[in-house]
Each structure stands twice: as structure tokens, then as C-alpha cells.
């Protein structure tokens, strides 16, 4: 582990700028992090970086924040993690507080109102596109069990307004139980 003021400053500087200039969500920023920390700085080996990304995606919370915690932790321990969280959260915090301060004045403007109304359809299309890409994978891979979970969760959420938290907890448990059954089968020497 590297613990010096120079390393701390570098960690903050890199995560702050990555967070400030990368549009397009967690996966984009994660690939930029790999480029910076593995290729340019050489602080984290390639295969380890991939595992860190896997953990970042499997943990709750924003992927970009999770990835920066892991990178900070790997490079400089807990203080490193604190610094990288601060670095990656500050840019959106500053930007969005400025935007929300002007939101009301902004929204009442007729032109802005019309443009935002036009954008509603665009946002719906972007979400539909994400759903098609993510959901299509289960159909193409013939993962019928996943398709079943997906349909059941949609019906529960959209038509019966079941609390989102319960749906997530239930489906997480189903996944956990599935692994447990598979592991037991494998342990008894059955088919894997």
C-alpha cells in the first residue's frame, strides 16, 4: 500500500476528474478507471482490476462510487477509500445543487418547458432501449428461469404496486437458494 500525501492527492485528482467528465453511467467510468490505474499509473494489475469491477457491479449502490471505493482501498487502505469517495461524489453534488437552485426559474420559461416536455418521450425511449438490451439477453440465452422472474417482477411492480424493496429481496433470495441447491448437488457428486 502506498500512503503518502502525493498518492492521496493523486487519488483525489484522478477520481474527481473522471467523475466530472464521464457521461453515461457506471460502466463508462469503470473502463476509464481501468485505463488510468492499470495502464497509465500501473497501480493495480489487469486481472485484479477486473475482479474489482465485478465486486463493484455486485454491490449495492452506484457502480462508479463502488469502483472508486475499491480502487482507493486497494491503493491506500481506508483513508484512500474515503478520499476516492469524496472525489467521485463532489462533481455531481456541486453540479446538481447549482441546477436545482435554478430549476424553478428555468422550468417556468416557456421554451425550456416545451423542450423538457419533448424530452419526456426521449427519456422513455432511452429507458425502453435499456430494457430491450438487458431483457433481450435472457431471451437470446434461453434463460427461461430468468425470463420467468422478470415477468413476475414486472407484474408485481407495475400492476400490483408491490414495494420495490420486497421484490428485490425476494429475487435476491431466489438467486441465493438456486446457488445453494446447485452447490449441494455438486457436493453429493450428482450432475453439475
Amino acid at each position, binding site marked *: 500500500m502506498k500512503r503518502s500525501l502525493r498518492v492521496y492527492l493523486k487519488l483525489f485528482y484522478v477520481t474527481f476528474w473522471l467523475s466530472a*467528465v*464521464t457521461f453515461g*453511467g*457506471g460502466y463508462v467510468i469503470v473502463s476509464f478507471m481501468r485505463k488510468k490505474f492499470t495502464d497509465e499509473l500501473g497501480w493495480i494489475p489487469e486481472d485484479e482490476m477486473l*475482479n474489482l469491477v465485478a*465486486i*463493484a*457491479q*455486485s*454491490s*449495492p*449502490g*452506484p*457502480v462508479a*462510487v463502488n469502483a472508486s*471505493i475499491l480502487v482507493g*482501498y486497494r491503493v491506500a487502505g481506508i483513508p484512500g477509500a474515503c478520499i476516492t*469517495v469524496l472525489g467521485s*461524489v463532489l*462533481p*455531481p*453534488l456541486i*453540479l*446538481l*445543487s447549482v441546477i*436545482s437552485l435554478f*430549476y424553478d426559474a428555468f*422550468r417556468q420559461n416557456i*421554451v425550456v418547458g416545451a*423542450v*423538457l*416536455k*419533448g424530452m*419526456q*418521450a*426521449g*427519456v*422513455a*425511449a*432511452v*429507458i*425502453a*432501449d435499456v*430494457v*430491450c438490451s*438487458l*431483457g433481450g439477453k435472457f431471451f437470446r440465452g434461453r434463460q427461461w428461469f*430468468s425470463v420467468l422472474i*422478470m415477468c413476475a417482477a*414486472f407484474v408485481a411492480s*407495475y400492476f400490483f404496486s408491490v414495494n*420495490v*424493496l420486497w421484490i*428485490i429481496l425476494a*429475487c*435476491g433470495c431466489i*438467486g*441465493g437458494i438456486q446457488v*445453494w441447491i*446447485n452447490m449441494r448437488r455438486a457436493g453429493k457428486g450428482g450432475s453439475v
Partner: protein
Amino acid sequence: MTFLDLFWSFFQVGLFSIGGGMAAMPLIQHQVVELHGWLTLTEFTDLVTIAEMTPGPIAVNAATFVGTRIAGLPGALIATAGCVLPSCIIVSLLAFLYFRFRSLTVVQGVLNGLRPAVVALIASAGCTILLLALFGEGGIAGGMEAFNPVAAVLFCTALIILRRFRFNPVFVMLGCGVVGGAIYLLIP
């Protein structure tokens, strides 16, 4: 009390959104629109639009936006802290376990169950936003008089452009804003 509500709401968003990106959206909608009524559905959709066009995770953007509107800068700081805290605790714990044991089988299993559910929840929130775009705040109850054909055409065109040509979503949204905005201004 407001501060506690803000913190606790976004703590839950941070704790239960798994899979990044849009995964947090249905949770934010549940907490902010349905449970506490901090934002109307239109304001929430604006927030998703703004969050998509600015850098940073949607959950952090939402926490800052809602926090500032409800309780100023302290509100923004508290909501953001609430949203990031579960990550800090759980990821540090997982990182510690990983560097010690290097095994993630069970975590991967839980994820296999969660992925389809997350897709379904995003679809569900997307339907709500689509209905808002097509029928306005009244929803489908408004009937055919409330139906907005301009939004329907914009939605279909944008979806085709996204699926077939893989355009950057930010430009597609901006395009919808410019074209839709011009039509709405010319034909009130």
C-alpha cells in the same frame, strides 16, 4: 425530521439499487414520488433527464437534486451521504473478504436472481414515464382526449434510432427536446 427522512430514504436507495445506472431509478421513484411526494411525476422525469445528461451516478444526482429542493445545501449533503453510506460499508466489507478469501460464488448467485428483477423494475418505471409523456399527469385515465400524438411519434422515432443506429442517448434526448419543443411552441 425532514433531514432524517431524507437520509433514510436515500440510504434505502443506496442499499437496494444493485447493478448500476438505471437500476436506482425505480427505487428513487418509489421513495421520492410515491412515498414522500417530494417531487411530482413531471419533476421526477425532469430529474431523470437531467441526470442522464450530466456526469455522475443517477442516485447521487437525485439525492442532491431532491435534497437541495427540500432543505437547501444541508439537505443535499445529508441525502448524498445517505445514498453513499451503504456502498462505503458493504463494499469495504466485500473488499476485505475478497482480498482474504477471493471467492464470490454466493454473491454471483444472488446477482443471477436479481438481474431479471432489476430489468423488470426499470421497465415498470419506464412505463410510468412513457404514460406521462403520452397522456400527461392524469395518466391513461385521461382517455383519448389527453393522448399526445407528437410524443408518440417522438418516442417511436427515438426508440428506432437508438435500437438500429446505436446513437448516443444524450443526443437522442436532446433531439427529442429540440424537435418536440419546436412543435409544442408552434402548435399550442
